[in-house]
């Protein structure tokens, strides 16, 4: 027997969406009334429905980024009523449901706004700055072998748990979008801590933090002012304690790299 479902009263809302044809043109908000909205619809489904209407009109459909729609890929990226990923806690935009809104609401939908995340079209932003940061140091060179080798290097439970908390980062960029200064510190802190906590991440630990922070700075992100807007919107609830850890790692790496001797035959090969 199907359990009785809660009230499914359909309602109407107005979507106020940022429309911008391309990176070089100025954008503006445009209102789209949406009727017969089911509270069980996801927010992205509502955008789909609005787009269905737009495809048969002279106007272009709203461009928005989405992929897995189950909160694990980090592709969806809207700012809903000023909050990246909308009203929920610990969820991505794709996990926002229309029951979070009231009938008659005007829902303002904007792209993530940061110099380092230029707008491509409407709600879609270019977030490859994160890829550049990852390429600068978000990797290990230790050979981890095949599956049976996974236990060859022992990892303490405490370190594994903490590293897993950091590794939960899906790189969506909501931390940047929420930060008053468009800083990428929570993202970088998560990536640096994730590998820095594991024994396999130790060989490159200092180089990693120095290179990733340098790449972050070059990409045009702002600076952290410890207001913790980032962790408040993180769909994976990553804590800003990792930012303190990143600061500590960075200063330590600065001093260690300065004191380290360099081989005079470096680069000569064996």
């Amino acid at each position, binding site marked *: 027997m199907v359990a009785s479902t809660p009230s499914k009263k359909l309602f109407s809302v107005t979507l106020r969406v940022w429309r911008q044809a391309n990176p070089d043109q100025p954008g503006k908000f445009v209102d789209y009334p949406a009727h017969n909205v089911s509270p069980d619809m996801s927010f992205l489904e509502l955008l789909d429905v609005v787009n269905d209407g737009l495809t048969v009109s002279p106007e272009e459909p709203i461009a928005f980024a989405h992929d897995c729609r189950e909160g694990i890929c980090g592709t969806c990226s809207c700012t809903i009523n000023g909050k990246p990923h909308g009203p929920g806690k610990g969820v991505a935009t794709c996990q926002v449901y229309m029951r979070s809104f009231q009938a008659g609401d005007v829902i303002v939908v904007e792209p993530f706004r940061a110099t*380092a995340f230029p707008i491509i079209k409407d709600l879609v932003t270019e977030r490859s700055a994160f890829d550049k940061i990852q390429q600068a140091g978000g990797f290990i060179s230790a050979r981890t072998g095949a599956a049976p080798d996974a236990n060859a290097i022992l990892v303490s439970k405490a370190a594994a748990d903490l590293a897993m908390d950091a590794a939960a980062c899906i790189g969506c960029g909501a931390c940047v979008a929420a930060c*008053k200064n468009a800083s990428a510190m929570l993202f970088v802190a998560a990536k640096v801590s994730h590998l820095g906590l594991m024994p396999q991440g130790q060989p490159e630990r200092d180089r990693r933090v120095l290179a990733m922070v340098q790449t972050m700075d070059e990409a045009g992100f702002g600076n952290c002012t410890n207001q913790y807007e980032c962790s408040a919107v993180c769909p994976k609830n990553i804590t800003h304690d990792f930012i303190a850890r990143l600061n500590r790692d960075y200063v330590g790496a600065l001093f260690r790299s*300065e004191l380290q001797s360099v081989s005079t035959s470096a680069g000569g090969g064996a």
Partner: protein
Amino acid sequence: MNILGSLFNSSIGKKVLMALTGLVLFGFVTGHLLGNLQIFLPPQKINAYGHMLESLGAGLWLVRLFLLACVVIHVWVAIQLTRENSAARPVNYGVAHTNRASLASRVMARTGLVVLAFLVYHLLDFTFRVQHPEWSQHSFALADGTLVRDVHTMMVQGFSRPGVAFFYILAVGLLSYHLAHGVVSLVQTLGFKNERWTRGLECFARVYCWGYFLLNTAIPLAILGGWVKAHV
């Protein structure tokens, strides 16, 4: 890259400079308040204390230059950080939304600027005594007969001007507010904060800032109210 270059050029380095200079200045204002509270003791106490500081000679100037360097770095780096931060988001959101950033944390530049303006005035007024050269005279005799500057009278006369007293109260109020974010923030920047003792740290900051504000305000209020009187 060398350490100094990285400190002045990287985002985390600049934040560390803000935190370290902030920590020094936090220590200074705390010590300065404790010294000033001697106004509530007999006049020879604060005058002897002032004489002790001035007789440090070159040592005093070293400390003063160090503090000045901290102020200059704190302000200079703050200007750089603020400019970078506004460049990182040139277009604001249509809907402004704040999740949990405290008001104190969002007005750091503004509270800091008022405090800086007061600092300049305060140094000209009480340290260089440009308006009242007579405050530089050694007119107070300590118990051993040494003639020293009369700091007590300077403070009483200084704070008997209601405009100056008001500016002072405003500045220490805004400085307390500045510290409400700064004290907790510097621990995070230096990398020593975590969830386990955040609450304790925030509690300390709240108690400290209220204490700092009330004790500082007590001085001009006691003078204006006539509880602390000129001794001559």
